[in-house]
């Protein structure tokens, strides 16, 4: 699998560290225990497109938000996580 890093171009996935699903967002203080439980443990775990975080550890060291289909690993979008969700 090759990952289209927005900064470096197509790179082997071995250069990246996988962080996982980008959907969970840390609840802001003060938060209920149930919100933290949801954030830490519960996952949509979709069979289809998922937004997820990859870190280009052996490259530009940017965090990248990738939209990838979990059924066939087709990547439909990649953007720098620092640029937010709108990009």
């Amino acid at each position, binding site marked *: *699998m090759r990952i289209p890093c927005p900064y470096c171009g197509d790179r*082997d*996935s*071995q250069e990246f560290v*996988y962080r*996982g*699903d980008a959907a969970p967002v840390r609840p802001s203080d003060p938060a209920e*225990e*149930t919100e933290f*439980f949801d954030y*830490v*443990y*519960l*996952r*949509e*775990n979709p*069979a289809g497109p*998922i937004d*997820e975080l990859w870190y280009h550890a052996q490259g530009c060291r940017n965090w990248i938000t990738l939209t*990838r289909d*979990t*059924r*066939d*690993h087709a990547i439909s979008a990649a953007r720098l996580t620092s640029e937010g969700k709108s990009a």
Partner: protein
Amino acid sequence: MTHYSLFTLLRNAFSGHRHWDRAWRDAEPQESYDVIIVGGGGHGLATAYYLAKEHGITNVAVLEKGWIGGGNAGRNTTIIRSNYGLPGNIPFYEWSMKLWEGMEQDLNYNTMVSQRGVLNLYHSDAQRDAYARRGNMMRLHGVDAELLGRDQVQAMAPFLDYENARFPIQGGLLQRRGGTARHDAVVWGYARGASDRGVDIIQNCAVTGMLRGPDGSITGVETTRGPIRAKKVGLSVAGNSSRLAEMAGLRLPIESHVLQAFVSEGLKPVIPGVITFGAGHFYVSQSDKGGLVFGGDIDGYNSYAQRGNLPTVEDVCEGGMALMPMIGRARLLRSWGGIMDMSMDGSPIIDHAPVGGLYLNAGWCYGGFKATPAAGWCFAHLLATDQPHETAADFRLDRFATGHVIDEKGQGAQPNLH
């Protein structure tokens, strides 16, 4: 059902093996059942078998989207063991081991249970101490464990690379009662036993939705072969638990990941039991046909594709080469990928779902095959009595919310490392 014995084997041999009965009935779905089990793998069929045999509940259907044993039951490395460390796990896996030991007599089916030992190697003083601790925890629970020094390991497995510059082998923790079993035979043995007791095994029947009663509880399932009603619905669909739970409006503490396994060309007998590498992630045994059956880490990112990628193939083979360089000349014959329910603490869930009428058997991570008999036993107990079995009482769904996680590795909430 024909009782299998030397006598029936001889009789059928003399008639050219043309008159064997079918091992189990390929049933058509009825309108309703007392219990529906979704998933015709080892776990689902074992659940149906024990529901019928131990609890007398025979109006049961097992629904399978493909053919029985075609999912993870046919995609594992067939290892059985009970070398766990935590109190929530040990009694359950030891109960599973005891069921393995009696399985062939119980099922009247040759599941090729072969207790030729599981040896976990250690490569440093610290790892030896950790293994000694795990062995002691096992022995305190009445499970066999032996800590071996290097000489003892060398007598068992002279072909390992003891002088590896980075990971010299110092010894190993051995569970002699561990070993392997024949995965397809386990599925067929349970299917035969369940079918014989009246359970309907329905193949090519994918569940597409849940039927709900007026109070919101689950009263059956929608399938590709029409709606089927049931008083209780049990999910036993490792890899796809999140998908089925979503149909009931639930989110689970589970991610789906792909785990690959490999088999080499057939070789003469060389590896005596199951051997695991302590400095990387590599486990290997040799099948009765002679193939080396081995595996390692999951690919590491969420996946529903039943196939893996090459970097993990390379990584697993590197682990094998570091441990036993002799395998370098064996050719890889096949590899395959299965979808694992990776739970957030590395331990399974056997519990009521927070929706009436629905029951979960999920989150088995890597470890589902060895758990097959006890998972079936305990899930059947839960379905029949609405009470958790004593050996599976800690496998609760709400343990993540209450902080009672069973984190064997001590790594925190992380599904993609285990």
